[in-house]
């Protein structure tokens, strides 16, 4: 019984990490209708940022969060403002292709600049854990979980209750009207996309502490973030948390009862099922 409890706790914590990763993708997708296949590359960039801050300047990964987010924010802003803005009104499919291309380029550049050597961020508390109800809980994962909730709430607040948020939603709903109201869509889009990138950067920051960093970690994370965004639903910012938790627990239980090589089958199988039966996700309204 306590094994099952531990597995479920593992799943929840994994879900927290997953939600953190998927948040940026879901934001940009849900609000701007941009499906960013280079999302994982942003996570990777955030991870490298935190690695260099940690190894060269001894900055603790949690303290480095704002810096990592800023770095990736800047990359995302430039990318959207000068490249992605060029195809915003094209068929959605073009976005998929172009972000795929950007992903390839970013990965290649990362390999040139950072080399393929894997890196880890190993602060002294990386392996710390505490016991609760007979289960062992890794400290860093618990913190990541808390961060995921905190950032999701922040996003929800910003979108719903700030001027910027209103401008973003206005653009998403009606571009022409938004322009008439004095909103400059190009900047708003770039800011929103940059926010999504920054969130990815935050996830990347922690990723180096729980796993290891190399230029190729992006693609599987993008795929997972997809699954989470769809399963949770794009209409509600909390959807990411629900999706992440669902996937984390599903994968852990699959690993326990069926076998750890079946986790991908489970995640993507469920994704296909959700798309077919309930495309707006667990939190979305059924049409």
């Amino acid at each position, binding site marked *: 019984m306590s094994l099952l409890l531990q597995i479920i706790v593992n799943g929840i914590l994994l879900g927290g990490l997953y939600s953190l990763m998927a948040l940026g993708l879901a934001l940009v997708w849900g609000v701007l209708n941009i499906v960013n296949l280079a999302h994982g590359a942003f996570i990777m960039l955030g991870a490298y940022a935190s690695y260099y801050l940690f190894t060269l300047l001894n900055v603790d990964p949690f303290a480095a969060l704002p810096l990592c987010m800023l770095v990736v924010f800047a990359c995302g802003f430039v990318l959207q403002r000068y490249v992605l803005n060029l195809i915003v009104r094209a*068929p959605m499919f*073009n976005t*998929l292709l*172009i972000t795929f291309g950007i992903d390839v*380029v970013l990965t290649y550049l990362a390999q040139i600049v950072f080399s393929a050597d894997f890196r880890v961020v190993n602060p002294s508390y990386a392996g710390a854990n505490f016991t609760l109800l007979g289960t062992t809980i890794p400290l860093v994962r618990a913190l990541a979980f808390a961060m995921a909730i905190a950032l999701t709430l922040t996003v929800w607040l910003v979108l719903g209750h700030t001027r910027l948020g209103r401008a973003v939603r206005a653009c998403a709903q009606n571009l022409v009207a938004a322009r008439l109201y004095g909103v400059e869509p190009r900047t708003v889009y770039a800011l929103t996309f940059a926010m999504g990138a920054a969130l990815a950067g935050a996830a990347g920051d922690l990723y180096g502490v729980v796993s290891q960093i190399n230029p190729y970690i992006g693609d599987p994370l993008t*795929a997972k973030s*997809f699954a989470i965004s769809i399963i949770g639903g794009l209409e509600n910012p909390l959807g990411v948390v629900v999706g992440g938790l669902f996937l984390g627990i599903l994968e852990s239980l699959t690993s326990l009862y069926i076998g750890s*090589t079946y*986790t991908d089958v489970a995640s*993507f199988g469920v994704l296909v099922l959700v798309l077919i039966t309930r495309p707006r996700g667990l939190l979305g309204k059924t049409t």
Partner: protein
Amino acid sequence: MMRAVGSIAFAALLLTLLLVPWLAPPALIQFGTTTLLLATLAQSWNIIGGYAGYASFGNSVFYGIGGYGTAIAMVQFGLPFGIGILLGALLAVFFALLLGLPVLRLRGHYFAIATLALAEAMTGVVSNLDIAGRNIGLVLPLRKGDAFFYELSLGLLAVATLTVFWISRSRFGFGLIAIREDEDAAGVMGINTTLYKALAFLLAGFFSALAGGIHAYWITFIDPVSAFDITLNVMMIIMAIFGGAGTIFGPLVGAVLLSSISEILATEITGMASLFFGLVIVVAVVFMPRGLTDLMQRMPGLGWRYFRENLRLHRL
């Protein structure tokens, strides 16, 4: 008179292509085979993505199924290649119907995502099947003689292109185009959209599977990661789009051009191929989203304004 000259030129080109294994050095035959297979894939995507407008990331699923069907038949059951590849194609058609019908109900990017998810799920499923060699894959029996594979690929491409030619002139094809332009209106006009879409998906899957089977036997190796490779899928889409989706020869042109440039880069500056590939995608999608054929048709009249027009239409 012009048509006669055109036909003769065309026939001469075909004859040259046919005779390549006896005229060209081995490396060129190899390159040719790879390009022919890629062109077939681009052409098969053209049917579902170009004509029907359903941008599918799922062709790699059928490519992989075709390859695995062939491999399993030959390695686990000792069957000859001809039977193997047929089994692979049948398996692909079966799955195209099984998976296609539910997935084709989705529109726009949800359809694309669903097919992407299918590819990932397939990779996971196959890597757990003992009969498929799990994650290690299968090593196929060796067959010497590249001419065989070259001619087979050429034949397959010819059949695929002829199919697209037939589609472009048939009611079926017009139905697909109608679905692409406005699916609801097409339905109202009496087109059985479900049937047409399923048929397009099936045809695309069929040709992809055959290409996968040939490739597996040629390379003598198949494993889950390479069989259901998403990058391959994107490559075939880019080739089709770059050349001109929804045209008969667009995918061929795109495949040949991009393949050649990529090959030259790969041998001269190893490793640059993926950078080039990524940049081509970005540039093509931004400046010439309707492909080379559209560019060649409209650029003589518009000049550089052609690119500006594309930007103006799509930029924010």
